[in-house]
């Protein structure tokens, strides 16, 4: 009976099924890495704490990049931060997602002509969802997360794959803005 009914799935199909199952877990247990790169981080505590209780969505803060699934880039990125952000992003285990908060990550925001702040985040690391606002209210943040989950469900949150595929492009952009991604100070010799 089994042998007649069971048509062996192709390897791709098996992979796809596994991936979908994995996606279910992944999107229901997004652990965030808050890198407080900018102001928008201030709206995350309300989201995480009792008023909005983000844990209901299965999300929670994580201490280190290795443990986290989604990197929250909360606002503008100065060059000094961007170096460390790239470090952080590359340390995260895949699949990983990035949410860009606020105007600054989209097109520079109020710091568009500053000498120290980059303008477009998605030139340096791939971004899956942008949340508008300066800063986004807690509700926008929460809705942004649902959007990310929806994207994961529809297999559209592929930023991390893109980072592999177009690694040269990202690296070139990083180099153009930063000069050098490597950090030079007493602690990073």
């Amino acid at each position, binding site marked *: 009976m089994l042998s007649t009914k069971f048509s062996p799935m192709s390897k791709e199909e098996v992979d796809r099924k596994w991936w979908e199952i994995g996606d279910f877990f992944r999107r229901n247990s997004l652990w965030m890495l808050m890198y*407080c*790169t900018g102001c928008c981080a201030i709206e995350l*505590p309300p989201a995480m704490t009792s008023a909005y209780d983000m844990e209901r969505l299965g999300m929670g803060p994580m201490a280190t990049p290795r443990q986290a699934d989604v990197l929250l880039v909360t606002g503008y990125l100065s060059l000094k931060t961007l170096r*460390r952000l790239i470090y952080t992003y590359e340390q995260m285990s895949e699949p990983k997602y990035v949410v860009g908060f606020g105007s600054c990550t989209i097109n520079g925001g109020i*710091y568009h002509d500053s000498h120290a702040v980059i303008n477009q985040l998605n030139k340096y690391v791939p971004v899956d969802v942008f949340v508008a606002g300066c800063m986004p209210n807690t509700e926008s943040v929460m809705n942004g997360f649902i959007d990310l989950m929806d994207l994961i469900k529809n297999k559209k949150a592929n930023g991390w794959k893109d980072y592999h595929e177009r690694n040269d492009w990202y690296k070139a952009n990083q180099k153009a803005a930063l000069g050098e991604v490597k950090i030079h100070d007493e602690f990073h010799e």
Partner: protein
Amino acid sequence: MKEMKLFLGPQHPGMSGNASVHMYVDGDIIKRSYLLPGMLHRGFEKGMERHLWVNNISLIPRVCVVEPDTNEMAFAMAVEMIAKLEVPERAHYIRMIILEFARLSIHLMSYGGLGGPTGLYTLMYHAHTDRNTILNIFEKITGHRVYHQYIVPGGVRKDLPVGIEKDMHSFLDDLESRYEEYRDLGINNLSIQARIRDTIMLPKEVVWELGVTGIGMRSAVNKPYDLRKVKPYARYDQIEFDVPVSDYSDAYARVDCKLQEVLQSISIIRQCLIKMPKGDVRVPISKGQAMRWTVPKGYAYACVESSRGEFGYFMVSDGGTHPYRVGVRGASYPQGLLGVEKYLPGTRLDDASLWIDTMGVCSPEIDR
């Protein structure tokens, strides 16, 4: 054992804000440490020179994220000082209400933040929930939860909305009734006391040396050195309030002062609501449309008492439509940079993030 290099931040749950404390530790004891600022550098002082006087009001709250109102107030005061503006009486009271709510909000946040380094997350959850209510009140008044852009040179941007007093009173009553609960959960709790008593000292002698102001200073020198008392701005001279002080400058004393200030703030807001007159709330900086407002030539240094100390704006105007130079004295600049370098060594690794929290080091205002 050899000295070990450790980072506290920038991406670190114990670090409030995007800055990094570099530490050399021996076992658990910090041997040397210094703050690595600049992660949040946006070139504010340059940016302000390049914005019109009126446009600057959208820029300045962003100097210190958690407490935008003191920025706005200091900026407004500096402009008013140069332009010799007479702010309407009602605006003074509205400003005080906003400032005190901001103080409440940041004290709650930092008291809740005590829960982070000590692991008492319940405290954090409770405090942030109450802070959320304040943010909602702010939103009703100013249009945004965090970046209020409300206190502007010449007054405030809009009058208080109708019926907001009710919201304020109900929140204040609620907070006051739960004040003892808060103390019991936090600093009366023995496990927290173990962490903050007799540790992270900032001795009286070094306060002046560092230039630390605010609670960090008052909890050490036992004198009411509060700018609201010493050189009253707005209408603080017409309000009765006490300045909590202490002569034993451990972390406990600082948190204790902070909590007592919460009560004082509540009382100030109540007095303001009673004393507030009716009338206009804003005068323009000069005649004409906003893009052509000018401020006469002059220098000014205006400072306000933020939750972390003296927050000052140094301003130079050359009579044009843009400020010539704006310098920001971040309130936590001394304790954040020099304090970490000189007085963190000797404490334990566990104390580093408590230092940052109880001193109220706000990295965006250091970096600017």
